[in-house]
């Protein structure tokens, strides 16, 4: 029966995605980089919307929330998966409100104003059935996908405003966004880039090779030399894995030290991060977001006795918002204190906890 086939096909796809997520944690699976993960998640959510059985917006939101919970449980350190689920939930809410005819975009948030003027305590239960809801939601998800495709280009387009000739820019490790950003600026300006290699994976080396291929003067330095070199640096531009709700960062190990060094020398710290990396979590809430990897990069497998001391390497560090000067995202440049506003536009407060 075609219906049953579609469902098993859908379940298979979801299971395959979950397996990829679990493997993707070690950096060796097919899903590399948060951009691809975000895109894959959105494709999957679109497929669920199209193929799963649901009659009202409430049902669809329940299905997506359940799948979202399973996906975040598979790989808690990848916050982009959860972010995309929340975006889609917000899309469903908006389309539902639009179908009902109420212009409720601003009234969905809790506010003092709403406390004073609202009618009943009753909650929206999203039970009404609308024929066009499925088509509208899928169209909105397609718009989201177009936005995801264009993020790196949108960020790179802003490069010329921030990078000037003869500047020395420092960056850490490897970030596709920052690479595109610097390459775009290199078309018209001449500047020098210092890349910190970022042990133990030494992704800084790949970044340096990529940059020098387009003719940017690049220098690779060891992580220990960051503070020493900082006095010669005009700007620090780095990418991040997640932007937290208070404007802080969860990024590759060593980012916090770079941020502190930059503050000490009063060097501006610019973060290039697309909007899908913005997560409604606060630091301190969950400690499960630290990713641990096997120490084989640092110690060869033959030294068995030392394994009792060093069983895992933490690869993420958390920075606070006071150390950051500017966030450059696909919608423009923003101060860290403004992140709360961007968040309220992207996600609904009830979806913060899936």
């Amino acid at each position, binding site marked *: 029966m075609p219906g049953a086939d579609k469902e098993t096909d859908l379940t298979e796809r979801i299971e395959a995605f979950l397996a990829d997520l679990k493997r993707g944690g070690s950096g060796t699976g097919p899903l590399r980089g948060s951009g691809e993960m975000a895109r894959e998640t959105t494709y999957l959510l679109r497929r669920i919307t199209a193929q799963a059985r649901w009659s009202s917006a409430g049902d669809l939101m329940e299905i997506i929330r359940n799948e979202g919970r399973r996906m975040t449980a598979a790989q808690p350190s990848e916050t982009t998966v959860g972010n995309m689920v929340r975006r889609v939930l917000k899309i469903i809410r908006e389309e539902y409100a639009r179908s009902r005819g109420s212009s409720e975009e601003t009234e969905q948030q809790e*506010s003092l104003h709403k*406390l004073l003027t609202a009618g009943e305590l009753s909650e929206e239960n999203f039970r009404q059935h609308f024929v066009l809801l499925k088509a509208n939601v899928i169209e909105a998800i397609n718009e989201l996908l177009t936005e995801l495709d264009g993020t790196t280009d949108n960020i790179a387009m802003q490069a010329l405003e921030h990078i000037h000739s003869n500047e020395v820019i420092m960056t850490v490790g490897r970030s596709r966004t920052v690479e595109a950003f610097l390459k775009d600026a290199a078309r018209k300006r001449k500047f020098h880039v210092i890349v910190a290699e970022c042990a133990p994976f030494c992704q800084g080396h790949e970044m340096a090779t990529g940059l020098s291929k387009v003719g940017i003067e690049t220098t690779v330095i060891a992580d220990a030399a960051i503070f020493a070199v900082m006095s010669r640096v005009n700007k620090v531009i780095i990418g991040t894995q997640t932007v937290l709700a*208070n404007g802080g960062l969860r990024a590759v190990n060593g980012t916090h030290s770079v941020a502190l060094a930059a503050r000490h020398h009063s060097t501006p710290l610019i973060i290039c991060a697309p909007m899908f990396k913005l997560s409604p979590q606060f630091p301190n809430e969950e400690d499960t977001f630290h990713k641990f990897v096997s120490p084989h990069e640092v110690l060869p497998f033959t030294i068995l006795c030392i394994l009792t001391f060093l069983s895992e390497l933490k690869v993420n560090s958390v920075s606070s918002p006071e150390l950051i000067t500017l966030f450059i995202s696909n919608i423009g440049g923003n101060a860290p*204190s403004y992140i709360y506003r961007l968040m309220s536009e992207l996600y609904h407060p009830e979806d913060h906890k899936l």
Partner: protein
Amino acid sequence: MQQPSKMNEEELVEYFRTQMRTDPDMASAVAAIRTLLEFLRRDKGETILGLRESLKWATDCLTEVDSSVAVSSGGELFLRFISLTSLEHQDLSRCKKVMEERGELFLEKISLSRTKVAKLCHTFIKDGAKILTHSSSRVVLRVLEKAAAEKKRFTVYVTESQPDTAGKQMADALRRINVPVTVVLDAAVGYVLEKVDLVIVGAEGVVESGGIINKIGTYQMAVCSKAHNKPFYVVAESFKFVRLYPLNQQDVPDRFKYKADTLRTVSDLSDEHPMIDYTPPSLITLLFTDLGVLTPSAVSDELIKLYL
């Protein structure tokens, strides 16, 4: 049936005091709003402007009884509520009915606010944490109760908080729920901060800049936490948001700084000790309110949404 007569000053004050007595757990702003709602019910005015005038008078009476920021912010919020409702309905009797209904709903919603705050905040308390708090705050108590109910183990340091030693009440309440607690001197805050993991305080008022007005000694605690790099969290319900923008301690109006009796009896206030101080937003890490977890910069957004 005879309609209850309009409330005069004594009845108003008596009603307010009874509210505070019957439910010691109720916030003073909530008691003020309840009193004003009762006043509204019994008011005999014929025009909306007259209603506003009498409500303003009633709020002034209440602030003479209890000069705290919370009562003032509760009164202003109620006045705002009246203005917003009166814009929708031109006819006075319909307007009053709607106001009474909405007033009841509003009171119901804000009675849930402490629970909402506790739900948001308790996840920030980790197992084995050492918490420092200032004086006695019912919201902080609720947060700690929730964390204890979630089976988290933590110890609390409370400042004694002179001149009314309110910290001891907080310590008693915490001992009752079996939380290990130590009362420290107000002067010992700097000494104890190196042992502490986080600082949580309540607020009597949250000002437009995102700063807070709270019992004297809070500012000191905030400055020390900043120096020690410890997170400084504030828990407050949303009805405490007040339309003030102090730039320093002197900017806070005198009517909030001293108790109501002091303001009435003493002529030269420079000899009196203030009861509250202002903590600027740069020292606050996060605010936990029933509108969500806010950074200090988000507070003015909330106030603008209401008052503009």
